[in-house]
């Protein structure tokens, strides 16, 4: 069975623009294979190429080199077919719009609708189900501007799943959310994963946010530094990825500190060879 997302040796360089005459190498030879129904957390520092990787998976950017297949299609085709849902990092929608929660969710189904055709019964059923899954059915007619922050995020998640995608990409979904909120978010994502048979990609620079949802973790800082189960993640890997002291990143996650020493020990034979391994994208 082919992987849900198959990334082979992609690099991406932002071209020089305007006054800034230097091009920026955002991703360097990244390979990553994401199996169906995986909940992958992509962890990395700001500027580490996480958002660029998302744009490449969504087909908004074209890789400078390498190739990507999403659910057996090119990223652009997969997006056009409605196979991919996306939750942006920041909600920049015009919240003073005269538009209801349901109408907002319905926007997720607009790409495939012909101008002269109304939404089909299946579209409406999918919108109702999306609202139900994020527990917003009761607020369906409420204006978008009258929602709390959490309700607004759930509305945008409902919009992302309104076309019943097979891959859901969430970009920094828990920025500014407290720990209780992150746990609730994790529960919601797990529900969606089970109910919709989804493959999930959650991008974050926050270890807790990734730990709350992911069963696999990829560490990205221009190149791929780690790709394995979260248990294999060590302070040494995080130190490499974040390039600074990682005590704060670990917080109360209780990952064994001695693993950092293991990774630095050249005589140590790793149970998981992907630990500390650069570009170990095919490890999954």
């Amino acid at each position, binding site marked *: 069975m082919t992987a849900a997302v198959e990334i082979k040796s992609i690099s991406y360089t932002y071209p020089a623009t305007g006054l800034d005459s230097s091009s920026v190498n955002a991703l360097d030879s990244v390979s990553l294979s994401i199996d169906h129904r995986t909940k992958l957390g992509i962890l990395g520092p700001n500027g580490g190429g996480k958002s660029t990787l998302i744009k490449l998976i969504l087909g*908004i950017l074209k890789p400078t080199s390498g190739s990507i297949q999403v659910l057996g299609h090119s990223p652009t085709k997969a997006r056009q077919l409605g196979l991919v849902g996306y939750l942006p990092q920041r909600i920049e929608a015009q919240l003073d719009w005269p538009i209801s929660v349901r109408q907002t969710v319905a*926007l997720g189904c607009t790409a495939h609708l012909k101008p002269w055709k109304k939404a089909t019964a299946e579209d409406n059923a999918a919108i109702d189900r999306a609202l139900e899954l994020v527990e917003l059915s009761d607020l369906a007619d409420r204006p978008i501007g009258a929602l709390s922050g959490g309700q607004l995020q759930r509305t945008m998640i409902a919009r992302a799943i309104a076309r019943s995608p097979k891959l859901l990409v969430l970009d920094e979904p828990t920025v500014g959310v407290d720990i209780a909120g992150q746990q609730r978010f994790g529960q919601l994502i797990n529900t969606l994963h089970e109910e919709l048979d989804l493959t999930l990609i959650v991008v974050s620079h926050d270890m807790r946010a990734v730990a709350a949802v992911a069963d696999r973790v990829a560490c990205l800082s221009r190149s791929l530094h780690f790709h394995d189960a979260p248990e294999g993640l060590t302070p040494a890997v995080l130190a490499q990825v974040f390039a600074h002291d990682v005590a704060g990143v670990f917080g109360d996650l209780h990952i064994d500190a001695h693993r950092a020493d293991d990774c630095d020990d050249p005589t140590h034979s790793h149970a998981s060879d992907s630990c500390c391994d650069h570009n170990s994208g095919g490890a999954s």
Partner: protein
Amino acid sequence: MRIDPANIPIIAAAIAIAMMGGALSIFVVLKRLAFIGQGISHAAFGGVGIALVLGVHGATTVGAIGQLTIVVVFSILAALWIAALSRSHKGRTDTAIGVVLSASMALGFVLFTIAESRHDHDEHGHAANGHEDEHHLIEEILFGNILNTTTTKSTIAVVTSAAILLYLWSARRKLIFWAFDEPVVDAYGHSSRSITNLFLSVLAIAVVMSMQIAGVVLAAAILVLPGAAALNLTAKLRPAFIYAITIGVLGAILGLQVGLNSSYPIGPTIVLIQSVMYLLTLVIKLLAPRLRA
């Protein structure tokens, strides 16, 4: 009320443009493009200057179509230039509009002077009349004169307005998505850049049509006031479009009624009436906010 048959082209053009302006104004207001409309309308002045220098003017049917074509093409290029400058200035749309508006107005005035000096040179001995004609023309371009609407111009206005209304209806879903949440539309299978460029081109055409009623200075008002007033009355999208079209058309009919039976200029009268309607809706919104729910 008996309608003078001679006024039918004027009335048809004004109502068609008002309907189109009403529907478009919801997007203009919600997407915060009012200042872009203002920029495009002033930029159109440069297009009029080019047409004059090229000797294309609206005295004949072919001349009217030629002049309109030049102004529309120039306005679309100005709109796309604003979009491109906004992208290169990382979203600083006000800077982009400031640049395009100033450059086009300056170009327009310089070209008017060139056309005027040619006119003086060609018709030596009639300089005084020539100056009067040019100044009258500039006044018409700046503030509009719908009384000059011929059957040809009226037909163009009606057909163009109908085409723009058809475009807005057929592209309504993606336009609403784009105007509501532009940063994510690409991720949902649309193209933000192509929607932006097409909408701004349509806006440029609408501005040129509205210039027939209200001139360069007031054209953008027809593409803003009905939407702004409608959104004072409702918090729902579909009624907002209906109210905006109704307010646009009502303003046009009342303005025509006043203008055709008095010496008041029709274009500014329509804009003034729509402004009063906006103020009335604002009072309604403030006094009875529950009506909007």
